[in-house]
């Protein structure tokens, strides 16, 4: 088979799979695995190369985090914080919204956006129902917060985990480079929120009193386990921060924490946790994607594309990073951001062989990370947490249409991308 034919087949399978993923005609994990093994069957990739393309560091890191979250979730700490937050706001609807934004973003930064949304959206539905106010703006704001928070650290959102694993950047690099951008963007979003909603949400005294009667103290069932979990998570974060010196491997750090916590707190539940709380569907979706993208790399399509991009931006880092930021932002608003990042990583690595100076290639990586994660807010289908949140709302008889969601979320997306553009231009150039 000639190189061109191989490349065309690889690109064909790639496009076919991505169309299935975007349109969700079939389950996206099924689509990605079929695409992956089709590449092996057609001889584009040998099985050996295909299996080696899977980034096991990412897969095991995620399994470890899922174990940590499963144990942490059982301590009741998430519920406690959510209820406490609403009570701290004394039932003031705008304050609840702003505090929930902060809590969601913070939780997403360290535990992942989808988990955070799955835990917090039902609670905000309960609180809004109790306060007799519409939950729709809250849901959208919290989704926006989850995607922004996820962008702030290496472990917040799968795209960042994958970037962290594929490059030499460590946990602290992500903190130093991305967290300030997200803090600025969050402040801008909170200001916008205040501007959009102040004086518009009203709550009666009676309904407020009901919500204030919640007894959150009972939610922490096992204080000892909570302490152990929080200490273990703190140690995990320290180890991740010291990773560049320790060289243990991020997957090993999260797996050790997860296994330790399960062993201490939930060893009897391990089978249930392994089957129901480790999200195998997502993990195998990623496995398939790694192989499909390897098809593009091996057949030379990625380097071809990289040269086209560099031609357009005349090998200059500044326009390249701006182009990447906004292109990532716009595209990942419509494409699930993990497949997008999986494709972009080899592309930027290829660009890195032309723009070799670290202080010039760094902003390109950070631009891609910020663009992809924040772009997830662009539309209702931009990121997993959007789909999950709207799904939960729908199950409760609350239909949030694509238009209704996007009308609000796109404003925050554009605002945060503008803040990030300014941040990148001022900090790196």
């Amino acid at each position, binding site marked *: 088979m000639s190189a061109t034919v191989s490349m065309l087949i690889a690109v064909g399978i790639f496009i076919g799979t991505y169309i299935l993923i975007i349109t969700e005609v079939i389950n996206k994990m099924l689509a990605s695995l079929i695409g992956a093994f089709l590449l092996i069957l057609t001889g584009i990739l040998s099985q050996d190369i295909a299996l080696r393309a899977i980034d096991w560091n990412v897969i095991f890191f995620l399994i470890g985090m899922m174990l940590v979250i499963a144990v942490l979730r059982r301590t009741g700490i*998430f519920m406690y914080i959510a209820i406490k937050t609403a009570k701290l706001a004394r039932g003031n609807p705008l304050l609840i919204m702003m505090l929930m934004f902060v809590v969601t973003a913070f939780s997403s930064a360290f535990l992942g956006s989808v988990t955070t949304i799955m835990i917090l*959206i*039902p*609670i905000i539905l309960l609180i809004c129902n109790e306060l007799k106010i519409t939950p729709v703006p809250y849901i959208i704001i919290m989704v926006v917060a989850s995607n922004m928070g996820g962008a702030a650290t290496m472990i917040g959102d799968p795209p960042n985990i994958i970037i962290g694993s594929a490059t030499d950047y460590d946990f602290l690099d992500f903190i130093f480079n991305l967290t300030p951008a997200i803090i600025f963007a969050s402040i801008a979003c909170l200001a916008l929120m205040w501007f959009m909603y102040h004086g518009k949400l009203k709550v009666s005294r009676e309904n407020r009193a009901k919500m204030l009667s919640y007894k959150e103290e*009972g939610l922490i069932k096992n204080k000892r386990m909570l302490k152990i979990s929080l200490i273990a998570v703190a140690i995990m974060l320290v180890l991740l921060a010291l990773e560049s010196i320790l060289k243990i491997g991020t997957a090993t750090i999260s797996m050790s924490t997860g296994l330790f916590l399960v062993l201490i707190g939930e060893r009897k539940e391990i089978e249930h946790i392994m089957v129901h709380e480790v999200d195998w569907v997502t993990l195998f979706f990623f496995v398939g994607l790694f192989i499909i993208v390897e098809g593009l790399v091996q057949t030379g399509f990625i380097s071809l594309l990289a040269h086209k991009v560099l031609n357009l931006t005349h090998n200059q880092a500044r326009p390249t990073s701006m182009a990447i930021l906004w292109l990532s932002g716009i595209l990942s608003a419509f494409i699930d951001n993990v497949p997008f990042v999986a494709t972009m990583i080899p592309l930027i690595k290829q660009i890195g062989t032309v723009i070799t100076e670290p202080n010039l290639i760094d902003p390109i990586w950070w631009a891609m990370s910020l663009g992809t994660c924040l772009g997830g807010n662009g539309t209702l289908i931009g990121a997993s947490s959007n789909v999950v949140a709207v799904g939960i709302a729908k199950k409760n008889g609350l239909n949030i249409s694509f238009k209704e969601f996007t009308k609000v979320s796109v404003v925050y997306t554009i605002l945060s991308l503008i803040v990030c553009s300014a941040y990148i231009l001022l900090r790196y150039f």
Partner: protein
Amino acid sequence: MLLADFLDPRTIVFEQRILTREQIYRDIIERICLFHKDILSNYDDNLLRAILDREKEAPMVYPSGIAIPHIRLDGLADTLIGMTFLQTPLNYDGIKVDWIVMIFTDKTSSKIYLNIVAALLKISQDSEIMNQLRSFNNGIEVINYLRQCKIKVGQELSVADLMVKNPVCVTPDTLLSKLDSLMNEHNISCIPVVDNEGRYLGEISILDVLKVGMPDYLMMIDDVAFLRSYEPLESLFEKEELVYAEEIMQKNTRVLSSDASIVETVYHMIKDNKRYFCVVDKEYLVGIITAMDIFRKVIKA
């Protein structure tokens, strides 16, 4: 095995007199004891008392007009049967019984006993055989006729024998308020939903009713210990006149056919963690079988 082979013509009686349940029982016990001296001691009032006590716990009486009192004896290692056909039926809490069959069985044997009960039940539901039996006047005729009919011991009890026939059911357009009062009135936790011709469509359990008052988001929360007084549960009452059976019924749940075996029924009950199944023959609802029915009539028997 033929049922006839378990019977002894000397312990089969046609009773013309009007007697009390106790008198009839004593009479049967005495006969069984008399003709099985080799393995039983002489008649003893304790046996009668044991049988009556057991009956108080779980009466072995069936709508087809048969009562099957029994006793399990330690080390009997046999199954002995005595029976009395009554000219004048006895009243067992509303069920008119004209055929009393008493079974003595070993403490450990259960299968043969259950099979004999099944065979007797089958006979009692067959009006042709029953009319013929009533027309006889001695045990030999009864045994010969049963042998001729090839009534076997060994066919398992089926769902049809134990189910509640013609259960309370509703149509899809029934209001929740009506459902609530039916469940309350009949003290039942499940109601089948059928169309106007009686075809099975689905079922509604008490949990489906309570769920009307529980929004989905509550079910997605890890822990609701912080909620003391929660209003949506009260909305169940507000929704009583707004929600129809159709909206809350469970479709595509497992149903059993009336010829399903008891073991199959219990198997599904345990597997599905469900205490009742609707019984459906060729799309039509014919009954409900509950775990309690099986427990009472098979296990406790």
